[in-house]
């Protein structure tokens, strides 16, 4: 089955920053992404969990974006603006995609 090269960018970011990140991404022309929930985790600023929480102040989400390699830098620049001062991990990996015409 024919596949196409693409990049998979995963941005783990505070939930409270999600809209700011996706707005910035959309402004940079990135419109395809999915949001995954994160239940908890641990890092330099300690560990956390969403259990029983009502506030939005802690907790993270993963914004996952499959993107053409040539568009990667636009996305990273946009993401960096938002993630910069904020807690967050950004990873990039190679993937192949089926039906590249769809994204």
């Amino acid at each position, binding site marked *: 089955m024919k596949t196409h090269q693409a990049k998979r960018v995963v941005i783990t970011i*505070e939930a*409270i*920053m999600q809209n*700011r990140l996706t707005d910035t991404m959309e402004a940079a022309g990135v419109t395809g992404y999915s949001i995954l929930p994160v239940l908890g985790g641990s890092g330099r*600023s*300690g*560990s*956390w*969990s*969403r*259990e*029983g*929480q*009502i*506030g*939005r*102040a*802690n907790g993270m989400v993963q914004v996952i974006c499959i993107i053409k390699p040539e568009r990667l830098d636009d996305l990273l620049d946009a993401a960096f603006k938002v993630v910069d*001062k*904020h*807690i967050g991990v950004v990873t990039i990996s190679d993937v192949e995609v089926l039906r590249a015409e769809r994204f």
Partner: protein
Amino acid sequence: MAEIFDLAATNLLSPVILSFVLGITAALVRSDLSVPEATAKAMSIYLLFAIGFKGGAAVAANGLDGTLVATLVAGFVLSAALPLIAFAMLQVMTSLSRIDAAAVAGHYGSISIVTFVAATSVLEGRGISSEGYMVAVAAVMEAPAILSALWLVSRGGSGRRMDGELMRDIMLNGSIVLLVGAFFIGAVTGQEGLDKISNFIVAPFTGVLCLFLLDMGLVAGRGLRESRGVLNFGAVAFGIAMPLVGAVLGLVFALIVGLSSGGVALMMVLSASASYIAVPAAMRVALPEANPSVYLTLSLGVTFPFNLTIGIPLYVAASQTLTGG
């Protein structure tokens, strides 16, 4: 005095408080007891809707007396001013950085709606009535403190942190919208509306509050466990002194405005309580460098339990003594 102790004891041995104690204990002994996030949010929606609606219906029943506007203004001023006092106290009592101190200060100007809810339930239990519009005052007091906190930081040199989007986020955050919206619905539909849904928002209210406080205890206990060592003696002392300072200021304003005995107590509770929803969220956006464990632990782990157990009966007793109510 004996009466205060009596009131405190009755309060401490109520299902509401004991549920909180159960939660905090379960978290501290590392039980895996937990309330799902969706359930906790559902209960907070229920409580906000119920308290807002009941406030609105009370206003519809009693009419608006002339003190409404004065009380709203008083609330606004208190919310904006308390952070300045808190900030000064923090600089004396703790070694927190300027930014951390400002972030903490913002929490103490704003309010904790569940502390307010617990206080109304104590008042009801003792048959003390209060102005229905106090929930509107609670809503008004959520945001100004955030602006004061950011102003404290910007005075210290770092550029401005407030933008239009953040402002909108703060003013239209879910709790405020729901509280104010339910207040209007209650005010518009009045006693008739209340009759239709009182089996939902009045009858089971205290029971839901128990489970909600169980969850708050779990979250607070987990926070305390995680952040052991984050707070030194000075910070903990602040977390107990500041609500008392706030309560006294709230008392003064409320007496000037001329609230009823119950209204005075609630104004004290609002001033004494520290935010743990709206302000932490705003601080993560505007002051990401501030350490969340400091302000969350102080607000939820120290001041909230203090107000819940000792503060509320104290404020109620003080207001009764001073208003003769």
